[in-house]
C-alpha cells in the first residue's frame, strides 16, 4: 500500500509472551497451593477459590467497562489471586478475602490502567488494605495439620458478610489445643520470646505450627521459574542476602536479644515474598544493578520492620516501599549506553528525565540535545530514496 508505518522499538519479538510467562508462574504456584490445602484443609481451598474468583471477576468487570487494558486470559489476575490467598491466614473470613481480592485488582491494578502500568504489586495492595481494615482477623492464625481439616471448616472462614468472624481461640479450646498454638513463629518470637526449631521452619511439616507453605517447596518452584528465566534470580538472591546480612550483623552484635539469621530467613512470608512478589516484572527494576539495590532494600527493611516496629511481619511493607522506590532505583542505575565512556556515564542517562523532556510536545517540540553518537549519519543521507 505504500504506507509508512512508524512505531517504537522493540522490532524483534521473542518467543515469550505475557500469557506464556504468566501461565508458567501459575503452574509453579499450583504445588504450593496444593501443599497449603494439605496443611489447612478445606478452609484453605475455599479461601484460595474465593480470593482468586474475586480477583478474576473484578478483572473481567474492569476490562469490560473499559477502565483497564488487558485481557483476562493473560492469567495475571489468577496469579494475584493465588498469591493473595497464600499470604492471608487460612481461616480468613471468605467475605473479607473477596474484598481483599477486589481491592487488589481494582486499586492495585485497574486504576493504574492494567497489567504493566501498576506501581505496586496488586496482591500486596490487597493484603495491605485487608491488614488496615481487619487487623484482628488477619493476625488470627490457626494451627496446621489439625485432624479433620478436610471435612470441617475453620469457623472464622464462614463468617457472614460484614459480620465478626467466630473466635478462633474458643474453637481451639474446644479441640483441647493451646491458644498459643495459633500464633505464627514470628509472633511467638516477638510477643512471647519463643523460637521455633530450624527444621520445622524449613519444611513446615512437623507439629501444628501456624505457618504458610513450606519455604523449601517455594524455593524449589521458584528455581524452576528462575531456570526457565521467567523470573530474575538476582532479586530473590539479593533480598535473602540483604536480610541475612542485616540479621547476622545484629545477631553477632547481641545474640541474646536478636534471633539468628536462619530464623529470620525462613519464618514468616519472606521466602514467598522474595520469590513470587518482589519479582513481579511490572513493579521491580529492569536494570541488573537496580535489582541488587532493590532486593537489598527489601531485605534491610524487612528485618528493620520485624525488629523495631509493632508488627511481627514486615515483608509486605518492605516490598511495597521498594516498589515505590523502583523508578528512582532505575534512574540511578542506568547502564552506560554503548559507545559512551564510563566517565561520561556519571552524568546520567542519555535522555535525562527532566520536565522539559517529558513535556516537550507541549513546549513546542524542542528536540533534546543528543549527547551520544556524535558522528552518526546525517538525516538526509539516510532518508535518500534508493530506487
Amino acid at each position, binding site marked *: 500500500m505504500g504506507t509508512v508505518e512508524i512505531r517504537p522499538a522493540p522490532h524483534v519479538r521473542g518467543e515469550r509472551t505475557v500469557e506464556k510467562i504468566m501461565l508458567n508462574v501459575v503452574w509453579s504456584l499450583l504445588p504450593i497451593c496444593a501443599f497449603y490445602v494439605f496443611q489447612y484443609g478445606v478452609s484453605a481451598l475455599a479461601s484460595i477459590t474465593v480470593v482468586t474468583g474475586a480477583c478474576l471477576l473484578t478483572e473481567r468487570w474492569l476490562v469490560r467497562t473499559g477502565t483497564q487494558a488487558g485481557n483476562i486470559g493473560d492469567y495475571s489476575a489468577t496469579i494475584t489471586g493465588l498469591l493473595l490467598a497464600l499470604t492471608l491466614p487460612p481461616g480468613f473470613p471468605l467475605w473479607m478475602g473477596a474484598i481483599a481480592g477486589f481491592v487488589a485488582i481494582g486499586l492495585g491494578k485497574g486504576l493504574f490502567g492494567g497489567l504493566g502500568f501498576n506501581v505496586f504489586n496488586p496482591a500486596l495492595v490487597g493484603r495491605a488494605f485487608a491488614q488496615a481494615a481487619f487487623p484482628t482477623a488477619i493476625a488470627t492464625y490457626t494451627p496446621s495439620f489439625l485432624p479433620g481439616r478436610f471435612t470441617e471448616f475453620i469457623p472464622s472462614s464462614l*463468617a457472614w458478610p460484614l459480620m465478626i468472624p467466630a473466635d478462633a481461640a474458643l474453637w481451639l479450646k474446644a479441640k483441647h489445643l493451646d491458644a498459643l498454638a495459633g500464633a505464627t513463629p514470628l509472633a511467638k518470637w516477638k510477643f512471647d520470646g519463643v523460637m521455633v526449631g530450624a527444621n520445622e521452619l524449613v519444611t513446615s511439616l512437623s507439629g501444628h505450627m501456624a505457618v504458610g507453605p513450606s519455604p523449601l517447596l517455594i524455593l524449589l518452584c521458584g528455581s524452576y521459574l528462575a531456570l526457565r528465566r521467567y523470573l530474575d534470580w538476582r532479586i530473590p538472591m539479593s533480598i535473602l542476602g540483604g536480610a541475612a546480612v542485616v540479621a547476622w550483623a545484629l545477631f553477632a552484635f547481641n545474640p541474646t536479644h536478636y534471633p539468628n539469621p536462619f530464623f529470620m530467613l525462613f519464618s514468616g512470608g519472606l521466602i514467598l515474598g522474595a520469590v513470587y512478589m518482589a519479582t513481579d516484572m511490572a513493579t521491580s527494576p529492569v536494570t541488573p544493578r537496580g535489582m541488587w539495590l532493590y532486593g537489598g532494600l527489601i531485605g534491610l527493611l524487612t528485618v528493620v520492620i520485624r525488629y523495631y516496629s509493632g508488627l511481627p511481619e514486615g515483608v509486605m511493607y518492605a516490598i511495597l516501599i521498594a516498589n515505590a522506590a523502583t523508578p528512582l532505583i532505575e534512574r540511578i542505575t542506568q547502564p552506560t549506553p554503548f559507545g559512551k565512556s564510563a566517565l561520561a556515564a556519571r552524568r546520567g542517562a542519555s535522555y535525562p528525565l527532566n520536565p522539559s523532556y517529558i513535556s516537550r510536545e507541549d513546549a513546542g517540540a524542542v528536540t533534546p540535545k543528543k549527547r551520544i553518537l556524535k558522528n552518526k549519519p546525517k538525516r538526509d543521507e539516510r532518508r535518500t530514496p534508493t530506487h
Partner: protein
Amino acid sequence: MSDVSTTGHWDQFMEGIWRQNPVFVMVLGMCPTLAVTVSAVNAISMGVATTFVLACSCLLVSMMRNVVPKEVRIATYIVIIATFVTAVDYIIQAISLALYDALGAFIQLIVVNCIILGRAEAHASKNRPAVATYNALGMGVGFTIGLLALGSVREVLGAGTLFGVSLFGANFQPWVIMVLPPGGFFVLGAWLLFFAWHARRKERQLREAGQHA
C-alpha cells in the same frame, strides 16, 4: 459577572450544590473533608459550621464591596472570615463539648478553608448581597452534602452505624481503615471516580443523541 447577577436566586443557590460542588467538582477545602468525616454527625456539623461562616462572611463582604479599597481587600476578607469562625467556635462549645472535641482543630481551620476566601474574592466582592448570600448558601449546602456523602460511607463501613443508629446489629465487623485517614482518601477517591464516570456517561449520551438527531 453581569450575566451571573441577572440569573435567578435559585440558580445561584443550585450552582454550589451540583455544577460547582466544592467537594466533588472544585475539590476545594480537602483538609476538613478528609479529617472530620469519620461519622455523619461530624460531617453535618462541620458542613453547617462552614455554611454559617460562608454565608455570613459573603454577606458582609458583599455589603462592603464598594467601600473596601482593593489594596486591603484580602486583609479585610480574612478579618471578616476569622470573626465568624471565632463566633462559630464559641457557639459549638456552647452547644456541645463532645462535638467540639470531635471536630477538634478543624473548626479554627475554617479560617483557611479556601472555599470561603475563594467565594469572597471571586463572587461576593462583585455581587449584590442577596445574590452573594444565595450563592454562598448553595456552596455551603453543597459542601455539607459532600461531607455527608463521605461521612455516611465511612460511618457505615467503619462503625456499622448511621447517625449513631446501628445498622447491622452487634456482630458487625468494623473496617478499621475507614475511620483512619487512608479511609478518607479511599472514599473521596471512590466518589470522585463515580462522578467522573457519571459525567462521562452523560457526555456520551449527549453525543449519541446529537448523532441521531
